[in-house]
């Protein structure tokens, strides 16, 4: 039987070819891994083995490796459909991960479960490798089959003709800026990550991150329970939910996976109901559902802590029903706070996805007899999936890099918190362990991002986020559905917007700073006005606004250069590189940026005022902050500029050049005026993202507090623990909410553009 490699798997499957699916390969890989793991545990119970044993050839380990590697090959030749590796999101995610993970485990000679997992993943690695090799081979043959062969020199000549002075400036300047301010910092992190403590091998930091009990611990200590009942002296019983602890690395993964999964399910559910059903009050619910998107760093998580605290509404209910309070702490708190804050990102993307599904496609399927859940599963969902997947991966990255919830819940056993902590406590050293951790975090985020890009990019659905071009199909909701909507969905949505409401109430002193007790008695604008009246506080507001304005101007300029070169440059390699460079900051966790910039300015500007270690009175933090903001938030501006350029047909530019306009005149006289609304909305979105930025603000800003932005102050309140500041922090949160509200109104009402701008 010949290998089957076409992408059209379903058709081929029906053609009678026996298809071993990828899950077979995984299943056998899993069995191999389990056998290996049991054998390993029996022979060497939990003690590090002498190195000699790993160096020698032979032994059960190598046999297990061999089996795991041979399985995919075997099944490949029996006709397995490896194209799935390339065409399904989760598979490509796993296989990209395995590209990094497997060699790393192998290289670092890490024993135990990590190694067993590596064996499991290796079958996937082999699968995707075989697939790529085959793809490459076929492309190679196809390209040889084409009749005409143009000499390379002529191809270069033709390519160069496409360039003119302006494009050359755009491309070189854009690339240089992105390489210098994006790649160099990341490379510096890598260099530091591979700087081991004296006398240890070069990978020592990574080995520690992957093996030390602090980072990876598979077994729970008996004292660490996910929840406990605590009884106070006064006899109050409280159920304290803390969540699990499996070490920093695994905690982060567990948290992000749970947050992403729950947020995706929730977001898709809400989106589906709102996109496909009609019921009274739908408009209001749609508006309420996006409230959690208003970003108010720290205070938001603090509000969640209160809501789920011993004096929150939940406890009020449980106390009356069961006689005890409920309190959520640590990892459990982080998870819940993140779910509540991030699920609307999936909701918005999924909503656009559902609206983007051409109703005639569904009608066609119904015509052929598909109904209900089957219709949803086989037609609607696959068509909306790219949008949903894009939303999910953003949630994954946001959750991984989030610092607000961990700081507020004092959960120090997370990657983000650990990096931050090392940064603040060990400042002055080169922080190699933080660098290694940051690099792992970066790898996870980038892998997820690349997976989604290859997945969404490969599908030619191209309907992502273009919702509302046709009248979507809405059905009336039956009585059961109505009950579910009003008694389940509505309370859920109201509950998820509670944090924002609480922040506003705290800012106006309508609830005390340490409990959730709404009352109108103490209502005052005092705290909000102090943002502008109190010079000690106003400085933060002023810093935020000036930095954000400046960064946004830079971001718009760079975005124009990048977007224009990518969409009009027409030299494939250059455009693709630039495109990747321009979008990848989306996938770079904020702390990685912060750490990268720390190294960047510390190493390249040693001894000058730009060196972060030059002291809290000389260090010019604003330069570093604005640079970091510009690069980090540029993708959001870039996205808008891309969208604008897509609206400008290339003929419009050609017509101008045809009449004698140079490229410069065409760009400035025709293109930019045509996309001005997109530039403005890009700038506005950029402004929001910059003004709510946390990671760089609190790390780099923390080195020069008087040049720090608002988010630094908000963090300081919770780190320092002074109660007075909470209301002011909440007032800052309110100010940020107002800014975001104004921005959205400007974009939606003023510029008449879609507000679904959060997401890929």
């Amino acid at each position, binding site marked *: 039987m010949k290998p089957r490699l076409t992408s059209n798997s379903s058709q081929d499957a029906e053609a009678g070819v026996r298809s071993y699916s990828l899950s077979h390969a995984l299943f056998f890989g899993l069995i191999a891994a389990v056998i290996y793991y049991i054998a390993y545990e029996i022979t060497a119970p939990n003690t590090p083995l002498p190195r000699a044993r790993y160096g020698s050839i032979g032994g059960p380990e190598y046999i297990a490796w061999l089996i795991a590697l041979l399985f995919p090959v075997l099944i490949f030749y029996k006709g397995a459909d490896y194209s799935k590796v390339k065409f399904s999101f989760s598979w490509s995610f796993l296989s990209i991960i395995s590209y990094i993970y497997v060699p790393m485990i192998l290289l670092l000679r890490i024993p135990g479960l990590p190694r067993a997992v590596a064996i499991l993943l290796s079958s996937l690695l082999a699968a995707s490798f075989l697939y790529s090799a085959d793809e490459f081979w076929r492309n190679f043959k196809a390209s040889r089959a084409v*009749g005409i062969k*143009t000499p390379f020199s002529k191809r270069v000549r033709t390519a160069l*003709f496409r360039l003119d002075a302006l494009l050359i400036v755009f491309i070189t300047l854009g690339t240089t800026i992105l390489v210098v301010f994006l790649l160099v910092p990341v490379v510096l992190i890598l260099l530091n990550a591979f700087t081991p403590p004296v006398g240890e091998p070069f990978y020592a930091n990574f080995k520690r991150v992957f093996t030390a009990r602090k980072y990876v611990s598979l077994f729970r200590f008996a004292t660490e329970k996910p929840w406990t009942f605590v009884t106070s002296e006064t006899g109050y019983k409280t159920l304290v939910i803390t969540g699990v602890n499996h070490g920093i690395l695994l905690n982060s993964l567990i948290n992000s996976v749970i947050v992403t999964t729950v947020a995706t399910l929730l977001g898709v559910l809400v989106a589906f109901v709102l996109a496909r059903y009609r019921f009274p009050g739908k408009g209001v619910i749609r508006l309420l559902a996006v409230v959690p998107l208003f970003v108010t760093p720290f205070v938001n998580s603090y509000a969640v802590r209160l809501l789920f605290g011993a004096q929150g509404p939940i406890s009020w209910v449980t106390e009356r029903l069961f006689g005890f309070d409920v309190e959520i702490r640590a990892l459990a708190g982080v998870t819940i706070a993140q779910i509540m804050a991030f699920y609307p990102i999936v909701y918005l993307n999924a909503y656009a996805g559902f609206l983007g599904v051409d109703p005639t496609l569904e009608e066609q399927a119904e015509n052929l007899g598909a109904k209900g859940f089957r219709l949803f599963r086989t037609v609607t969902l696959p068509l909306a999936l790219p949008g949903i997947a894009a939303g999910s991966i953003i949630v994954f990255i946001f959750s991984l890099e989030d610092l607000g919830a961990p700081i507020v819940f004092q959960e120090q056993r997370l990657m983000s918190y650990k990096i931050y902590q090392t940064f603040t406590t060990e400042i002055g050293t080169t922080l190699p362990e933080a660098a290694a951790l940051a690099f792992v975090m970066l790898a996870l985020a980038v892998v997820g991002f690349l997976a989604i890009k290859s997945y969404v990019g490969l599908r030619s659905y191209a309907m992502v986020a273009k919702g509302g071009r046709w009248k979507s199909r809405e059905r009336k909701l039956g009585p059961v559905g109505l009950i579910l909507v009003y008694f389940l969905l509505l309370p859920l949505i109201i509950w998820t917007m509670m944090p924002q409401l609480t922040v506003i109430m705290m800012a106006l002193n309508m609830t005390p700073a340490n409990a959730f007790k709404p009352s109108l008695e103490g209502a005052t604008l005092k705290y909000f006005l102090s943002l502008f009246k109190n010079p000690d506080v106003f400085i933060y507001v002023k810093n935020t606004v000036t930095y954000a304005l400046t960064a946004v101007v830079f971001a718009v300029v760079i975005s124009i250069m990048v977007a224009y070169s990518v969409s009009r440059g027409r030299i494939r390699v250059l455009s693709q590189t630039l495109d990747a460079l321009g979008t990848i900051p989306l996938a770079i966790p904020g702390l990685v940026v912060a750490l990268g910039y720390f190294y960047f300015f510390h190493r390249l500007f040693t001894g000058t005022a730009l060196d972060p270690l030059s002291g809290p009175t000389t260090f010019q933090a604003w330069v570093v902050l604005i640079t970091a903001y510009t690069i980090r938030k540029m993708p959001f501006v870039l996205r808008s500029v891309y969208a604008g350029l897509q609206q400008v047909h290339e003929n419009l530019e*050609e*017509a101008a050049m*045809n*009449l*004698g*306009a140079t490229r410069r005149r065409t760009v400035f006289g025709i293109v930019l005026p*045509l996309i001005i609304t997109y530039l403005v909305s890009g700038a506005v979105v950029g402004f929001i993202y910059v003004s709510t930025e946390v990671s760089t603000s609190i790390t780099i800003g923390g080195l020069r507090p008087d040049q720090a932005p608002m988010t630094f102050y908000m963090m300081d309140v919770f780190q320092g623990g002074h109660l007075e500041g909470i209301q002011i922090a909440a007032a800052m949160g309110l100010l940020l909410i107002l800014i975001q509200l104004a921005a959205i109104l400007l974009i939606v009402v003023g510029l008449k553009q879609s507000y679904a701008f959060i997401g890929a």
Partner: protein
Amino acid sequence: MTRIRLENVTKVFGPVVAVDHVSLDIESGEFFTIIGPSGCGKSTTLRVIAGFEVPEEGHVYFDDVDVTFKKPYERNTAMVFQNYALWPHMTVFENVAYGLRLRKFSEDEIRRRVKEVLEMVGLEGLENRYPLQLSGGQQQRVALARALVVEPQVLLLDEPLSNLDAKMRVEMREELKNLQRRLNITTVYVTHDQIEALSLSDRIAVMNKGKILQVGKPDELYFRPATLFVADFLGRSNILDGEVIEVLEPHKVLVRVPDLGADIVASTYNMIRGRVKIVVRPEGIQTAGFDVIENVFDAEVENVMFLGDKLEVRLRVGGASMIAYMPNTMRLAKGDKVKIHIPPDRIVALQV
């Protein structure tokens, strides 16, 4: 007044050879049309002339000046795009004035010239409208005015009429022709509409799969197609298999056509022998008078369609089924027997 010469031009997009070793000579002042099916490389050829694409091979000359590597804005061509490419944020006046502004004319001069050209295309009084407030035909005229106002050396038109409705298309066709005659400007016109091509052009090039198959005057192409593709593409044709059995005169051959069960006399313009195809235009089939003996066949009417100005009749002639146009006054019905005659000069034999 510019001559355009393409020499061996080849343009490749990845695996697609969009233009394949095309050589063309376009006389100055000529109305030259490139026609061919969708995707055959017409637009690409035009874009090579305008300078939007640079060919992998070959050269482009304007009056013996090699412009192959000149940027679009360094060639004095003016193009009318299929989608008109009017700038939506500028008024009609601003659109038309753009090229003049680039050429640094004084404001007065610009106003005068724009007014003149708008009058020429019949758009007086619409100066302050925006393109989206105009009808398709009006937009098309603005695009034309914008191209003409700069007095280009070469006018390039890429299917300018394809977005208009049928009636509008006929009107604009005539206007375009008159305008071009009056200005006497070298014009390259791209279309896939044969009526447009035949009625407008001084000469036509038929293109397929990136290659030029035949260049000639409209009637030449119609009556004396050089390849089967040209015969099939321009006008309708009945095509039958045959075999040359005798060369009668330099341009006359005797062809045995098994489907007709007879030998017929056909015209040819190349050296042909062996297996051939014969091409008969529907209007070349006549009802036979009594004075001819050559190429006369018995036919049976299979179907009659009334087209208004003529009848389209499907005839069974021996083993072949052929389409013929008959005068609309004829009374024919299915099953009628007729005698038909095909004059030898209306039958073209082509080497397969």
